């Protein structure tokens, strides 16, 4: 009898991928999709589905929530900024209803940004494949799911078949060891990584985040980092599920229960990358060297520690941003602050912002938009809404809001916004708007000082 063969060590990603390949055609794998989330931008996919006379193949594995177009000052489609925007919300509603898809409607407290709702409801679980027609679907990897953003044609393909043709991505491990520097948060870790590897540094790769910093990080923080994976070009980000993950999932509405939970837990504990598993590339950062970060340009890779100066680089970006090389980042005055988005709108983000706002006053207009109705309720139960209001911040309902501005909430040309969102692209928050990306605490500090501020000096 031959000795049992030792299977080759595999990464977390390998294990999930291998378990979902229906069949292969050359380099292409037909990948089974466990969970599909749709939002109010998914209308092209539904139009194509209906015009072909097709039905949603697995409505029970499909979940819908309006987020991109929703008003944040009211909870009715009638509150939408324009009739066209209202139509986007109503179209999603009718598409979800017509297809028997679980929906979290605008007036449902469970409504929120799709990447906040998935983990919150237990839709996102370790070991699953999850897709959504939004690039920030990389977020869900924080729970150990392989999740990635897709286009509308792929959206249609999943609605019709519950599968996708995919090329196997390469793997990259990013280790961050040590303890984060003073004032540094998961957002700063994400920006430091992107500044290091570049906006295209992880194209074609799935990143696994490893090391002491991620082990010590909450699920909310991991969601922030995985969310920003796409800003380094990655297909997705992943963090190995651990007891922190399991504690986060336990009791969620759609999480397994009872004996099923025990079986799931056993499966999830086998997911982390095996000792000796090979990654196509490896990157390492020292957590202790990561400081509070802010972007100065028009790509998320244009990020520096807050105590740095505007570099002499990318003249077109500097012209758009209205900045001169050599200017101290802390000398840059802002006109507005936005706290929210799928990157930073969870309860921990709001707590960090409120801690900075407490007892202080905003000197520029500041918008706080929670990630979901449930986050909003939790924040209110903790009195955070009162802290924000007393500081002169506006406290709104859940949605994507000023991250992408397609609900009508945009800045004005040349307006400078300190924003906890994920993209500082030209025009992202409105035509001509200048965006500086930073953490929730840094954003709240900017709100009360009126300029980019080093929170380490705030006390």
């Amino acid at each position: 009898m031959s000795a049992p063969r030792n299977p080759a060590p595999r990464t977390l990603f390998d294990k999930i991928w291998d378990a979902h390949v229906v069949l292969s055609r050359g380099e292409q794998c037909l990948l089974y999709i466990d969970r599909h989330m749709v939002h109010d931008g998914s209308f092209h996919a539904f139009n194509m589905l209906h015009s072909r006379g097709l039905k949603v193949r697995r409505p029970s594995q499909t979940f819908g929530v309006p987020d991109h177009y929703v008003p944040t000052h009211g909870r009715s489609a009638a509150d939408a900024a324009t009739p066209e925007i209202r139509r986007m919300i109503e179209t999603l509603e009718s598409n979800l209803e017509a297809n028997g898809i679980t929906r979290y409607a605008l007036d449902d407290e469970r409504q929120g940004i799709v990447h906040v709702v998935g983990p919150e409801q237990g839709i996102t679980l370790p070991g699953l494949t999850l897709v959504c027609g939004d690039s920030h679907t990389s977020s869900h990897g924080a729970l150990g799911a392989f999740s990635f953003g897709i286009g509308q044609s792929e959206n249609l393909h999943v609605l019709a078949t519950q599968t996708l043709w995919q090329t196997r991505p390469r793997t990259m491990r990013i280790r961050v060891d040590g303890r984060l520097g003073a004032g540094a948060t998961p957002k700063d870790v994400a920006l430091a990584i992107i500044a290091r590897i570049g906006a295209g540094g992880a194209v074609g790769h799935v990143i696994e985040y490893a090391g002491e910093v991620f082990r010590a990080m909450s699920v909310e923080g991991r969601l922030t980092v995985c969310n920003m994976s796409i800003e380094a070009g990655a297909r997705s980000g992943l963090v190995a599920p651990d007891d922190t993950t399991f504690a986060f999932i336990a009791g969620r509405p759609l999480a397994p229960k009872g004996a099923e939970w025990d079986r799931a837990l056993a499966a999830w504990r086998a997911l982390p990358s095996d000792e000796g598993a090979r990654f196509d590339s490896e990157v390492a950062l020292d957590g202790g060297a990561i400081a509070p970060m802010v972007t100065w340009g028009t790509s998320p890779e244009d990020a520096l520690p807050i105590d740095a100066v505007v570099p002499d680089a990318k003249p077109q970006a500097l012209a758009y941003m209205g900045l001169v090389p050599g200017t101290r980042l802390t000398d840059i005055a802002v006109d507005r602050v936005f706290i929210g988005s799928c990157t930073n709108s969870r309860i921990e983000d709001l707590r960090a912002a409120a801690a900075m706002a407490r007892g202080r006053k905003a000197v520029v207009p500041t918008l706080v938009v929670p990630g979901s109705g449930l986050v909003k309720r939790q924040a209110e139960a903790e009195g955070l809404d009162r802290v924000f209001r007393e500081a002169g911040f506006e406290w709104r309902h859940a949605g994507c809001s000023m991250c992408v501005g397609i609900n009508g909430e945009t800045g004005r040309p040349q307006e400078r916004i300190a924003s906890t969102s994920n993209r500082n692209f030209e025009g992202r928050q409105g035509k001509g708007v200048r965006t500086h990306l930073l953490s929730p605490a840094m954003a709240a500090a900017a709100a009360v000082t009126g300029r980019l501020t080093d929170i380490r000096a705030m006390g």
Partner: protein
Amino acid sequence: MDRFTTLTAVAAPYEPANVDTDQILPARFLKMPRGNGKHYGGFLFHDIRFADDGAENPGFVLNRPEYRAARILVGNTNFACGSSREGAVYAFLDAGFRAVVAPSFSDIFFNNCLKNGVVPVRLPDADCAGLRALLAARPGTEFTVDLEAQELRVPGGAVHRFEVDGFFREMLLKGVDEVGLTIGLLAEIEGFERRHHAANAWAAR
């Protein structure tokens, strides 16, 4: 999807690296309907292409007379990064583009191209830089993108080999409907699904 075999057309250079899909299709156009005579061609690079008063920005490459007929774009690294919006590909397609050449593409845009009959051609960084320089020096130059031979040909003899995954190349060459093809595999999908859900009941819904 319209099939793609060979295209000979004017190519235009687009210099910036990390061009994001917010530049290619500003978000406010995402809610626009498409089909029944409505198209996205006019939205392509809208806020760079047009001034606030709606007049064309004469400095923008696609507004220059020599590039008006362009159907091939030669871009730079990490082309079309950012948002997953397929509208970015609709904008290229509806403006007449059937091929985009770049050293690297965002994964989502790359896939979106394949689903819409736009050929994403990956060539080495230095080759792309050379092609952009050539197009800038000789505006109006026509390139040939030959998907069957997997070659990009430049007048004067230069031939650049590229590769498109065989599965998608076949689909593009024949104009195969991908959803239809997969629906033909439904028995396999159902079999997989039964086994997958039996082994991982916690994952089933």
